[in-house]
């Protein structure tokens, strides 16, 4: 018996020796994070945002003079977005990870440092206080999903991760106060697999469990924030 155990032990040790390389646990920072650390030129960002640069149109054209689009426009608010989220999205547009006919070419026209500068510029912009919501016509379903989620659908509240409606919940977790058309388009894109730049698919899985009515309820709710 002892021999059998010794043989088994030897076998194990041989197997262990074969595994010479041990896993490297250290996290490698993504390119957008490196760029953000390297370049923090707010003024350069402002210049690109207002005047454009080569094939990159001026951001202000669609996204508004101070990063807040005109009422009713389908373009997202950029003012006050976390630098990390902003930079990651432009890198993703550039690399084709987030597909968009307008933003793809714009991303491709920008260098790492220029994206970083834009991120720092838009993060520096003041965002006006959230609009007061009219409680009488508060969209009930949107409020429920945003604040409490839905137990039967295994949906956590949006605010668990995305935090404050304007300020957001963390570096890559933007506040969700956005025009209704933009929110609805993004949720639909996550749901239909057209937008996939959400890591392991956390938003795709959530969006797949939202009905059309839920998407509209959330879009309306966040348009009022």
């Amino acid at each position, binding site marked *: 018996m002892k021999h059998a155990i010794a043989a088994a032990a030897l076998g194990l040790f041989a197997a262990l020796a*074969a*595994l010479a390389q041990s*896993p490297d*646990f250290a996290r490698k920072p993504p390119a957008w994070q490196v760029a953000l650390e390297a370049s923090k030129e707010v003024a350069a960002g402002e210049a690109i945002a207002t005047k454009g640069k080569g094939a990159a149109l001026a951001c202000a054209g669609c996204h508004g003079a101070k990063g807040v689009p005109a009422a009713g426009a389908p373009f997202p608010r950029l003012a006050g977005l976390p630098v990390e989220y902003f930079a990651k999205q432009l890198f993703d547009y550039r690399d084709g990870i987030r597909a968009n006919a307008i933003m793809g070419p714009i991303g491709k026209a920008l260098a790492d440092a220029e994206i970083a500068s834009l991120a720092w510029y838009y993060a520096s912009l003041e965002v006006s206080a959230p609009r007061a919501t009219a409680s009488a016509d508060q969209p009930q379903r949107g409020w429920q999903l945003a604040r409490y989620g839905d*137990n039967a659908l*295994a949906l*956590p509240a949006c605010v*668990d991760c995305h935090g404050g409606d304007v300020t957001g919940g963390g570096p890559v977790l933007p506040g969700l106060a956005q025009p209704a058309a933009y929110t609805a388009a993004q949720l639909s894109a996550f749901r239909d697999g057209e937008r996939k730049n959400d890591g*392991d698919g*956390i938003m795709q899985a959530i969006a797949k469990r939202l009905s059309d009515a839920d998407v509209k309820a959330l879009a309306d709710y966040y348009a009022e924030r």
Partner: protein
Amino acid sequence: MSKIMPAVDVVLVGGGWTGSVIGKELAATGQRVVVLERGQPRWTSPDFQAPGVRDELKYTRRNELHQNAATETYTFRNRVDETALPMRRWQFAYPANHLGGAGVHWSGAYYRWDPVEFRLRSHYTQRYGARIFEDGITAQDWPLSYDELEPFYDRFDRLVGASGFAGNLKGVIQPGGNPFEPWRSRPYPNPPMRVPHAPALFGEAAAKLGYHPYIQPSALSTRPYVNSEGLHMNECVYCGFCSNFGCEQFAKASPQVCILPVALKLPTFELRTNAHVLRVELDKDRKSARGVTYVDAAGVETFQPAQIVTLCAFAINNTRLLLLSGIGRPYDPATGDGVVGRNYTHQTSSGVSLFFDESVKINPFMAAGAVAVTMDDFCSDNFDHGPLGFVGGGYIQIQVVSGAPIGNRPTPPGTPGWGSAWKKAVKRYYNHSIPITITGSALPVRGGYLSLDPTYRDAWGQPLLRITYDFPDNDIKLSAFLTEKGTEIGHAMRGVTLAQGNPRTKPYGATGYQSSHINGGAAMGSDPATSVVNRYGQCWDVPNVFVTGAALFPQNSCYNPTGTIGALAYWTADAIKRDYLKAPGKLIAS
């Protein structure tokens, strides 16, 4: 005179993992099932949603999801010649309460036990000789093997959405995994967790010293997952509110997330909350149970008749129910006779406090209950115990569980406990300190046992459970050995300015947290003289009563219990369906 409910086929005491698994399995075969949960119903939404759930004061300090020590607690003493006193607040462990039980407030650390754990006595005796066990150690073999349990581990893996990287697939060691892992028939359903900075530094140092670090398996889903019951789990977001909290994300496996929504849709399954079970009622001959008596939400004493009673309460609370119901012979430490209450164990945990220079940022709030880089080089019998003279082992790891502001106040030894010097040290070290965690096995001793307290009673007038226990020398030696190894790794880590090992010392106490893994009292075995239940959890003396959970462990391994508890729940449910229902009232042949 009790109120009497309509009879059912099966009553299960407790709405945690085992009650939910066995209840659902039996209800699905058409058995009429009632689960009695003493606590309140709590669901991920709305009860565990942010910001309300991220309340350290409420959940951790004031024990929101733990047993209410004001109405029911344990008494404790080290030796039989002492008088036990009640624990007024939880410090040594966190017994669970409310729907989902410990399966809600757990951390999600998810292990299979080493095959050696199931034949502990015979394995060590064969390899090292019987004298490796010190006098008075009552460790014994399980009545089943790892190989028998493997399909049930596999099944529970897919219920909880286990994450990890297989180290041993059907006996073939897999590069990148834990080479000491017991064989598994299939890979984990989900990939391993992401690694925070401190565990990465630990892994680097451990590998440099020749050890085999790997990412701890967890029951926190690491990607969107649809489990074996068709229920959705979301991806863990590392919010740092796992241990003692309900998970806001539907990411940490719990009965609520993983099984109850399906069970509750079965017409044969009923869940009754706020139902506090007092005892199992027996026939006159005391060889058969008639059902259970409980106090309902309105305070009415109620009798629930049933053909099968399954005890699914928190760990050692099952042992208390056996004692309160007069099932099985209570253990007598003076003679060594009797079995109920025998083989109580906890876990031999210790730590190494690490303090870093200010260039190393730990970010302890970027955390999850089970996110760790760990190593099994000193677990079970993965190393030579011959020259060491003790039995058992432990895992060594860095896990980043929580940066919660009340509990996480690391200061170096010698720092005053209050005042400006303390404040300065807290500020300096909050983001530059983390412990190495060491979790060791625990051996049962002849004088360590559970019994009914002769003095103190609970809010329902029933005797409290009394714990009598002190560490065997074996476990103190084990802790000294493991803590020294952990300290060496700490010294080898980049940026460490101080590594202070804190091995476990005698006496065992009620005031220092060790783990929530308190076990035993209803040991599973093949001999009625040394066990309370057979290999299927069936009481030797009352065959229509089944016991589940950590009360069954004859001794504790170094690993976290939930994986094994879940596998055993499926194992018992299978035996009831396959064998017991064909010959009700009879002991299942082994």
